[in-house]
């Protein structure tokens, strides 16, 4: 171990430097978006001379924006709930039982992760058209669930693989039936994984653009509205909307799990 620790040579330097560069790379656009949402100038001129809430005020008065946000929230909630239920159940079955074709089922479950969303959106669109359905919120939910299922399945199955089964056995020995074990032992222990699956799917579906573009029909969601804004060339307002989205994402991914963890332990 001493020897491995002494490797403060080229390799370590490369690691440090790349990590710093990558984090700057990842956060540079985000910092710029936030900064320029408070700039008065519609161009992104480097020293921000005048600060204002101009874009935030247009944002507050934008009726279409509120409508599309509500749509997106609804879509996100519905998608994350459905995919949490379906995904957690599937993860249970896959982890806890051995059967033929397990790899195959797992592969199908993870397939949406690697399928280009464009191809999937297009295929659902043609499928629904063949059935004669009109595109609506329902079709969008269906499309999103398939794409968020893998998140839930992966997170829950990882948590189930690291699950201490002796706790369940202990409960069984003490006379609990299967549903009690499920209710009082298993679900609380994997609840955090399920919760993070729900959060990831929610954010994913809230921000998903490509599938939504094909499937939402007349119900504009927030990303499709932002898309149309960009196409119309109303760009500085996008700064403010993007800032809101970034804040939500940061809050949910970094702060919310901590709050949830504390609660889970105090229970």
């Amino acid at each position, binding site marked *: 171990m001493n020897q491995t620790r002494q490797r403060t040579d080229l390799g370590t330097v490369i690691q440090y430097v790349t*990590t710093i560069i990558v984090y700057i790379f990842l956060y540079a656009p985000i910092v710029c978006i936030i900064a320029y949402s408070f700039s008065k100038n519609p161009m992104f001129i480097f020293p921000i001379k005048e600060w204002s809430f101009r874009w935030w005020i247009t944002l507050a008065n934008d009726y279409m924006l509120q409508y599309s946000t509500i749509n997106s929230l609804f879509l996100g909630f519905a998608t994350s709930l459905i995919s949490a239920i379906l995904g957690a159940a599937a993860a249970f079955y896959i982890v806890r039982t051995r059967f033929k074709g397990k790899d195959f089922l797992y592969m199908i479950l993870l397939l949406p992760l*690697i399928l280009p969303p464009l191809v*999937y959106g297009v295929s659902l669109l*043609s499928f629904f*058209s063949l059935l004669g359905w009109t595109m609506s919120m329902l079709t969008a939910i269906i499309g999103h669930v398939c794409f968020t299922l893998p998140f839930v399945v992966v997170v829950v199955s990882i948590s189930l693989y*690291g699950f201490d089964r002796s706790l369940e*056995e202990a409960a069984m020995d003490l006379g609990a039936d299967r549903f009690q074990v499920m209710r009082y032992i298993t679900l609380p222990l994997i609840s955090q994984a399920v919760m993070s699956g729900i959060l990831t799917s929610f954010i994913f579906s809230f921000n998903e653009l490509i599938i939504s573009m094909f499937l939402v029909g007349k119900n504009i969601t927030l990303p499709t509205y932002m898309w149309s804004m960009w196409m119309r060339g109303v760009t500085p307002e996008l700064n403010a909307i993007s800032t809101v989205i970034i804040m939500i994402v940061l809050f949910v991914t970094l702060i919310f799990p901590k709050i949830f963890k504390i609660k889970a332990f105090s229970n």
Partner: protein
Amino acid sequence: MNIEIKNKKKTQISRIHSYSNYLYVLPTFIWLIIFFIIPILVLVGWYSFHTGYVFLGATNQTTSYRSSEIAWSLENYKIFLFHQNYAPIRILFLRTAMTSLIIVIICFILGYPVAYFLSSPRKIRRHQMTLIGFVLPPYLAGYIVRIYGWKVILGNQGVINTFLIYFRVINKPLEFLLYGQFSVYLTLVYIYLPLMIFPIFISLQSLNKSLLEAADDLGANPIKTFLRVTLPLSAPGVLAGFILVFIPVTGAYLEPMLVGGKDYQVMFGSIIRFAFGLGFDWSMGSTASVFLLIFAFIITYLFIKFVGLQRIFGEAG
């Protein structure tokens, strides 16, 4: 060997009381069959083998794409593969595959050191989870926000250009920054880099550290240890990252459309998007998607051949 013992133990336990009730998985399975497998089969087996799904004029909403003569034929494939008007599209397909390969390699070069650094329990042990958590928000912020951020930075009136002009490094804005190959590659790397970092991080974290010590004790130098122990053992993560980046990039169309300018406006995905959008040629669009799917399946198949899925997600916990 360790794994075998573990698995044996698992089977024993699951024999005691298993959740072998397939009702758990049935709804998910049915859902995936109806809304995932069948739509793709419809696209592949129906639309790509039919001619006539082209725009004939606005009738009513659901039937506007129907032509008078929808018929089974191989015409789409013939046209796509051999017609001379489609030569640019075939070249575009190859160019897109090439682009994906380059993007994957850049992502790997940038992503591996980061994953390695984050997974090595040295000075950052306490902040490890926070740091890896900070990779997530840029990934989850959605396409528009992420591409838009680069427009803010790279544009002619953007941050870098005005910054350089402000400090009198340059007189005119550097035009190659936005609207060209450079910006497309940059945004693609930006969008898919987290998908490379995460799998590698997971596989490096579950790597048995005593193997590295053993290699050290046996006199291997750090480079040799890395190349012959660390890299092969993290291969499942690397390959997962390759797949997760490579295949979605082949279907990318938003990035070139938004920041590609006129030189780099289209990738193969743009063809599909156009066919199902303004172009209203669903038959050709499906055929193009089929080629993308075949490509994806070949890559995935090779990947599963190389490393079993179990090795990637099974050991992660």
